[in-house]
């Protein structure tokens, strides 16, 4: 009896902690490859494109402040939209330098604060690196500076040519653009320097590993900035009554949908590992889920998530280009879009997170 017991115990011990059989490891999912796909084909190209758009914005900013004309204002506006669209492709990647700079909070906090901006212009002394100045800079502040100062383009140009404070407006405008460009330069330099290798080689599974951080960031972005910020908050989901002034690019008016669609597409592309500006796909959350599915014969989760991305896109296609207009005429369409976005929160935050076994934080747990 006893001998039998010992035999089985030994057998169990051996089966549970012994045995190094590397024979089948080839079908393992390679997280390092996923990380390098993210870095080399998605994040870095997206940042480089963002940086290029910002340097275009800088040129147009200089052209306009040198010679404030309606034509130059229109050019400036176009490059502002292009840079703003490029931003939607990098906003979710708040890792590395972007994280330490807290770049999202200094780039796209809206609604912006016109009275704060006017105070800054009037006083001429402001430190844009202070967290209290979050809502007085970035794209939303530029939106106010080039779309919201007056009701016609001619009047707006007049603000910049005004004897008293035209120069102060010019300075502030250029300072805003410079700040964006500086942050982007730092981030790109960091990715092109040592950070890329640090990121790709951090392929472990701890709570602070690159995969865990990016996945947590991605979901945080999707839930808070895409679903809530762009659609939910203006549609009144969190306040009881709609806030049409809380849409992205409120002063411009006609690009809130465009910006939302860019952001939705970029989250979808990231999920699928689609290379920036191309249709090729590499290792991604999608292929990771598909791999894990082969282990546990689960449902086709990545398929469900992609279907839900499409549903969100179709719901959004019914919306007016101007979200604050849409809220005024028929807010229920905004709420429908929100509901579709919300369904993917559940699929990704509940089902995907469970499948990936991504830890939320470094803390002891015994799984109950």
């Amino acid at each position, binding site marked *: 009896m006893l001998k039998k017991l010992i035999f089985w115990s030994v057998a169990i011990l051996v089966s*549970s902690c012994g045995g190094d059989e590397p024979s089948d490891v080839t079908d*393992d999912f390679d997280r390092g490859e996923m990380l390098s796909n993210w870095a080399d084909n998605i994040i870095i190209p997206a940042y480089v494109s963002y940086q290029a758009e910002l340097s275009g914005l800088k040129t147009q900013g200089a052209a306009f402040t040198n010679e404030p004309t309606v034509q130059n204002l229109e050019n400036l506006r176009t490059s502002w939209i292009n840079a703003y669209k490029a931003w939607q492709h990098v906003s979710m990647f708040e890792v590395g330098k972007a994280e330490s700079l807290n770049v999202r909070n200094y780039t796209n906090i809206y609604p912006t604060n016109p009275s704060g901006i006017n105070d800054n212009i009037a006083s001429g002394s402001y430190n844009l690196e202070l967290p209290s100045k979050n809502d007085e800079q970035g794209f939303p502040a530029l939106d106010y500076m080039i779309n919201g100062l007056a009701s016609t383009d001619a009047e707006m140009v007049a603000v910049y040519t005004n004897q008293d404070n035209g120069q102060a407006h010019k300075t502030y405008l250029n300072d805003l653009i410079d700040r964006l460009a500086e942050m982007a330069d730092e981030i790109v330099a960091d990715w092109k320097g040592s950070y890329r290798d640090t990121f790709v080689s951090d392929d472990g599974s701890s709570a602070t590993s690159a995969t865990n951080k990016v996945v947590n960031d991605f979901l945080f972005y999707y839930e808070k900035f895409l679903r809530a910020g762009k659609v939910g908050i203006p549609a009144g989901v969190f306040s009881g009554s709609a806030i049409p002034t809380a849409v992205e690019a409120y002063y411009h008016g006609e690009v809130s949908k465009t910006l939302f669609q860019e952001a939705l597409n970029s989250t979808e592309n990231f999920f699928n590992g689609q290379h920036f500006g191309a249709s090729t796909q590499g290792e991604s959350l999608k292929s990771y889920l598909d791999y894990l599915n082969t282990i546990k014969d689960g449902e086709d989760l990545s398929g469900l998530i992609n279907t839900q991305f499409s549903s969100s896109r179709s719901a959004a296609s019914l919306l007016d280009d101007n979200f604050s207009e849409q809220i005024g005429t028929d807010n229920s369409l905004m709420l429908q879009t929100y509901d579709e976005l919300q369904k993917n929160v559940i699929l990704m935050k*509940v089902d995907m997170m469970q499948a990936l*076994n991504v830890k939320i934080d470094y*803390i002891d747990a015994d*799984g109950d």
Partner: protein
Amino acid sequence: MIQAFDKYLTQKTEAAPLAAFRVLFGAVMFVSILRFWHNGWIEKLYIDPTFFFSYYGFEFIKPLGQYTYVIFIICGIASLCVAFGYKYRLAIVTFFISFTYIELMDKTTYLNHYYFVSVVSFLMVFLPAHTYFSIDAKNEETARELVPVWTIDAVKLLIAIVYFYAGLAKLNSDWLVQAMPLKIWLPSNYDLPILGGLLQQQWAHYAFSWAGAVYDLSIPFLLFYKRTRWFAFGMVVAFHLLTSLLFPIGMFPFIMIICALIFFDARIHKIILAKMAWVMKTSLSEFNNGKEWMFKSKWGMKATYFVVLLFFMVQLALPFRQLFYPGELFWTEEGFRFSWRVMLMEKAGHANFKVVDPESGTRFYVQNNDFLTPLQEKQMSVQPDFILQFAHYLEQYFSQKEAYKGKDLQVFVESHVALNGRRSKPYIDPTRDLTIEKESFRHKDWILPFGDEIKGL
């Protein structure tokens, strides 16, 4: 039978195993507290959050802001005093109270091993663990070389209950037939050398599941019998080191390893203690006085027997309280805690709270992260008692807002939970106003049905 038991109660044995247990337990607890502090968890878990999830009936136990550190300091000092056996009774009572206080501050951090520490330290209050190799025992009045056998057996019994019940809980279809949740957890350890590739294999998930169940069920017996003891201890070390490699379970493996030592006889413990004595430049011989420890009064004896007996009855019965609740235990978690159900579930969820002012028809959703830390939100989303408590908090919070003063707000939740690799399903009835539901030990009929079955205990 009763005579035999009476006789058993008077049997004596050497105090060394109990003393060694006291020293190691105190020392590991001290390290645990330091580690907790060092990791910044006091700040993060008990000071930073704005809201805390209390245990039902213990709502008055809350973190004390910056003074929370004082509780940890008290707990740390008490654990050192336990280790050194200095003013032992006071120290172990202080340790039990301060440690349990910490655990009761927020159930977000509930872990079976913290509960285990509370339970062990409660039991130790009634055990003469300070009569040998302690500062207290430097005084001849206190020093005793012999203690009742039951005082050591009580610790063994508690450890046996923990393992055996943990084993019983694994006898369910998810664990044995589906190899869940290990099938989810193990592959994410891909970065371990050698094991990483193995952990991607399905057969390995089954092997780990079955081996874990057999281990838990058999280890108390293997430790108990002398002939299998060394082997069993080897298993304990291997098993717990492996789990500490695979899962983020902190100090627990080390606590269980030192606990298993108590099954060894006094000879081994005297060797361990002699080594410790040598390090501390003292010697064991002064404690070897051949004297027996006895209760100071008959009343004290009866009270101790009563409490210890009651304690074990509760320990044996409590894990079965889930039988009084309908529905799937893993889904409702009614009767899940305090039952040695360890590592059994992978649960993820999302809860979307809707606040409604029925008078004006205003309705809005809540951003949970305005109120909760990521960890709190994760725990809240999958446990009904958390959801209810948070709903009540939201009612209270928003009815203090100017716009809703004096209004009778309603709170609804749309929530989804995924359990052990199943697709997520709606969790709480979204039509039930949670502000009128009360917390109690009764079944919460607003939890939606699981729609699946997990067979077994």
